[in-house]
């Protein structure tokens, strides 16, 4: 299957000797939107971190293919340069480092990896301006230090701004909708929708249906105790919102 973007097979991962992911299987194709839901502590962020290459987690079993490459053998930065983006559940503040400086390095590292020339200063500024409009991020914020003193909502918008700058093949957005007010949610969600094309794919990790009103998923997965215990279409999210996870969990725990 040539439009297969991400193929996760029987993925197991541990942190500090504790097994968190216990056999994940997940196939994502270009053009698709997947939602991953599941109770707190089920391993959603862990899955995102392992895919991004966070070295805190040890993969003990399984394989991951991304764009035909063996993802697990690659460094964090090479995964990013190849086109994997992780929107952090908790974006990190980096005092004294301006967004512009940070993004210039990020964009040009990606270009270098792909054998492209670095952007000129003018091209870069144009890109910054164009992409900050996607999430209505004010130029005041893009001239500040990375996430420093940003409100919760601004941090999440900033994640999507960076996603827009880097134009990833696969974006994994970890609770990008948490902590947003109604307007910010609309802006962030519309931003993500604008960035979605038939050539890329998006995996959104979320607890709420409200995000999925904007970003309509093709597939919805439920992650529980480190496994995907159920997969359905977009109506699953609605059912979960109404009925919670109990009906699934009770079935599974039996």
């Amino acid at each position, binding site marked *: 299957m040539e439009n297969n973007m991400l193929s996760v097979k029987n993925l197991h991962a541990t942190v500090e000797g504790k097994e968190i992911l216990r056999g994940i299987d997940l196939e994502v194709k270009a053009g698709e939107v997947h939602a991953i839901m599941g109770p707190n502590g089920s391993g959603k962020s862990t899955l995102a971190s392992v895919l*991004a290459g966070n070295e805190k987690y040890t993969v003990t079993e399984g394989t991951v293919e991304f764009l035909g490459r063996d993802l697990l053998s690659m460094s*964090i930065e090479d995964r990013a340069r190849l086109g994997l983006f*992780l929107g952090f559940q908790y974006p990190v503040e*980096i*005092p*004294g480092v301006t967004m512009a400086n*940070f993004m210039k390095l*990020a964009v040009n*590292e990606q270009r270098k990896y792909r054998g492209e020339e670095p952007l000129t200063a003018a091209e870069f500024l144009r890109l910054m301006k164009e992409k900050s409009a996607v999430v209505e991020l004010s130029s005041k914020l893009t001239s500040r230090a990375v996430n420093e003193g940003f409100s919760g909502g601004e941090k999440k918008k900033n994640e999507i701004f960076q996603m827009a700058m*880097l134009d990833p093949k696969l974006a994994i957005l970890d609770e990008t909708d948490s902590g947003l007010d109604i307007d910010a949610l609309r802006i962030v969600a519309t931003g993500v929708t604008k960035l979605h094309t038939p050539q890329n794919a998006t995996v959104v990790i979320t607890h709420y249906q409200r995000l999925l009103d904007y970003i309509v998923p093709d597939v919805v997965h439920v992650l529980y105790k480190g496994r995907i215990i159920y997969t359905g279409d977009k109506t699953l999210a609605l059912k979960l919102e109404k009925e919670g996870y109990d009906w699934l969990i009770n079935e599974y725990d039996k």
Partner: protein
Amino acid sequence: MDRIFEILGELRKAGREVFRVESPVPQPYASVDPGHLRVELAAGAAAHLVVLHTEEGTSALDIDLSEGAQLELTELFLGGTFCETAVRQGARSRCRMTTVLLAGANVVYRIELEGADAENNLGGAFLLGGREHGVVKLHTSHRVSDCRSDSTVKGVAGGEAVGEFSGLVYVARDAQRTDARQQSRNVLLSETARIETMPQLEIYADDVKCSHGATVGQMDSDAILYMRQRGLSESQARRLQIEGFVGDIVRRCGVEPLGEALLELAAEKLEKL
């Protein structure tokens, strides 16, 4: 480094032994390896002075600011100089100092606030690697009432380097309404690097606002991870983070292109830490 010399080459020379300024209009001056230099600013005079230390030897700056004088002093250490800088400030004088150590120098500052409403502001940074050993000692004395001092010294040590900061704020019995702040903030880049910091207050007046603090931390591994996830290499991420940490100090020097040139030079050094 050449860039720094180029910039300094375009400035007036501060002369040897005694450098006296009378003009109230601040002009930038430069001095390279001054040895023993006395700097006098007449009442109401103003100047920018950039001092570059490259040698292993000793150096002494004796600075005297008369009433209302204003000095912007930038010192850059590229060699293991032992340097003592004494600053005496008269009433209403202003002294803004920046000191950057890119080598294992041993630097002592004695600041004496002797006239009311004098103000001293110091920003220091040391970046040490390999087996370098750098020392910054700061002794700020509030002798009379209504003076202000504010010092921030940031330290970065990698490899097997050792950094030392010791700061003392002394407030005399009659120095009421003193406002004194001192901060020492440090980052260790390796397990084998060490930074010792000793901020002290010695206060004999009762109506004062004094604060001091010291921290020694590591690189923020979450920030490194975050930057790498956006495609930066680990070394770029580390460098950016340290630049962010010391950038405000290194860049703050008042002579226009010098701040950026210093940051560039510091970044080159960071690359090797």
